[in-house]
């Protein structure tokens, strides 16, 4: 499969501040790609380089087979882009802005009208008559997503698309992104890990301008993940947590909500075998014993959390 985005040794600095450091990135066409990183990791800068709004200091970035620096109308025609804080002509209404955006792609007539109506519906703005200047942040974000989709792009670039949305809006956007699977390459940056886990095939994790991991989510979890056991007991939780931590199968202990004990384990079978006996020996009752897979959050924390 060909790459929708391919970066090699991509470096960007502003004066003496290094924002991206030799980034290598491959985004397969048709994939939904989550670009993760804490604030200031370089996600927005990568997207600006991808769209040609900024130029690399070193290295290269190709978009749909073309150098992003020299990308002309042919490449821009195939891209939809939502910046992190989309800005609109506030004197326009949403239908006017979508018609304007479509017109820039050469769309007109009934095709543009139908597409505008469909996207207004998707953005939940069909009956909104006010000018964009009166919109809330969430409404602007939804309109931003709609304008990024006006040309039915081959590559959709979204910078923090769900950050300003309420839970219903977030669900709507994630469902929309998931519905594009296989038809459009979606590359979206975020620091909301649950969003990535919900819709992405592949993720890249960026930290302080450096790529720390890039792989399909399952592979990443298998590579970095250990299994986890959550235990709830009726008494002596502190002593039991300490005792679990001394067992050879336990690598980390954390206290969860409502006094639960979360144990990261290397041997799930051994843990499940030993835990009830340890609880019984301490004259406590076992209220809950649950084995779970480690989440992306734990992987993320393990990869970027060290040294912070």
């Amino acid at each position, binding site marked *: 499969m060909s790459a929708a985005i391919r970066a090699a040794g991509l470096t960007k600095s502003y004066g003496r501040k290094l924002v991206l450091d030799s980034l290598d990135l491959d985004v397969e066409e048709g994939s939904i790609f989550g670009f993760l990183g804490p604030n200031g990791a370089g996600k927005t800068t990568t997207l600006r380089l991808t*769209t040609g*709004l*900024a130029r690399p200091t070193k290295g290269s970035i190709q978009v749909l087979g073309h150098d992003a620096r020299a990308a002309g109308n042919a490449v*821009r025609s195939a891209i939809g882009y939502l*910046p992190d804080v989309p800005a609109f002509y506030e004197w326009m209404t949403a239908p006017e802005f979508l018609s304007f955006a479509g017109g*820039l792609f*050469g769309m007109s007539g009934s095709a543009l009208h139908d597409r505008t109506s469909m996207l207004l519906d998707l953005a939940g703005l069909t009956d909104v008559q006010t000018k964009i200047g009166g919109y809330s942040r969430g409404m602007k974000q939804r309109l931003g997503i709609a304008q990024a989709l006006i*040309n039915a792009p081959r590559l959709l670039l979204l910078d923090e698309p769900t950050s300003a949305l309420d839970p219903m809006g977030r669900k709507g956007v994630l469902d929309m992104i998931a519905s594009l699977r296989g038809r459009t390459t979606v590359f979206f940056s975020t620091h909301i890990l649950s969003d990535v886990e919900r819709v992405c095939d592949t993720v890249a994790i960026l930290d302080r301008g450096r790529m720390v991991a890039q792989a399909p989510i399952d592979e990443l979890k298998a590579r970095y993940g250990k299994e986890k056991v959550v235990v709830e007991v009726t008494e002596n939780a502190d002593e039991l947590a300490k005792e679990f931590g001394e067992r050879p199968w336990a690598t980390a202990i954390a206290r969860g909500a409502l006094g639960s004990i979360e144990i990261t384990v290397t041997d799930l079978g051994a843990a499940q075998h030993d835990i009830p006996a340890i609880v019984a020996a301490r004259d406590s009752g076992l209220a809950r014993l649950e084995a779970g897979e480690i989440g992306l959050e734990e992987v993320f924390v393990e990869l970027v959390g060290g040294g912070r």
Partner: protein
Amino acid sequence: MNATLVFARKEALEIVRTWRIWVLPAIILFFAITAPVLARFTPEIVGAVAGDQLGGISLPPGTYLDAYGQWIKNLSQITLFALIIIYGGIISTETSSGTAILVLTKPMSRGAFVAVKAIIHSVFLAVLTVIGTLATWGLTAAVFGHAPADPVWSSALIWLLLGVFYIALMTFFSVLIPSAVGAAGAGMGAFVLLTIGALWKPLSDHSPAGLAGQAAALAAGKPVPDLLWPVLVSLATAAVLVAAASLLFRQKEL
């Protein structure tokens, strides 16, 4: 419709639907209307205010040439200042607010983005100049009973060329300087330099520096023998400024 025309339509709509439709038109119409009235009544006003202090000196009655002169003088000073301030952010307002990003990540070239803005606002200024000149011409005819077309229209046309030159200059400064206030300051500086430069005849005769003086001379009904050079040089300089702004904008990171 291609992207350039769509963007041009947006730019024109933006003029009609925002503060832009009020500020510059109000300034130009105010001067268009007041010039003939002030020219007609200035001797009476001065006489009434000065009382006996003029020592029996009586001011000559105003003529249509005074009205035209007043109109062009106001255009060449206050209206140009307004133009410089208004267009200090012609490009930078869009880049700093982020609206340019949504346009320029679509199939719209940066060169066309800059050129369209300079052209549409020049056309807007041309329309305002025509309306203002019609108003002052008509009022002059009403007030003085005699208003030849040549002096007022030829001087207004030369001033329009100066206005277009300043729009091109501000387009360039607005790409070069990210702050609208900073660009307006640079525009004011250029205005002062051109005004001083106009004192040197070779520069005045062959560049935009002399256009204000030539427009004033035409409005006063004086002959201006050779307008070709300043007109051609001003048009060429305006085109070069917009081209330079486009090239510079293509190199900029947004």
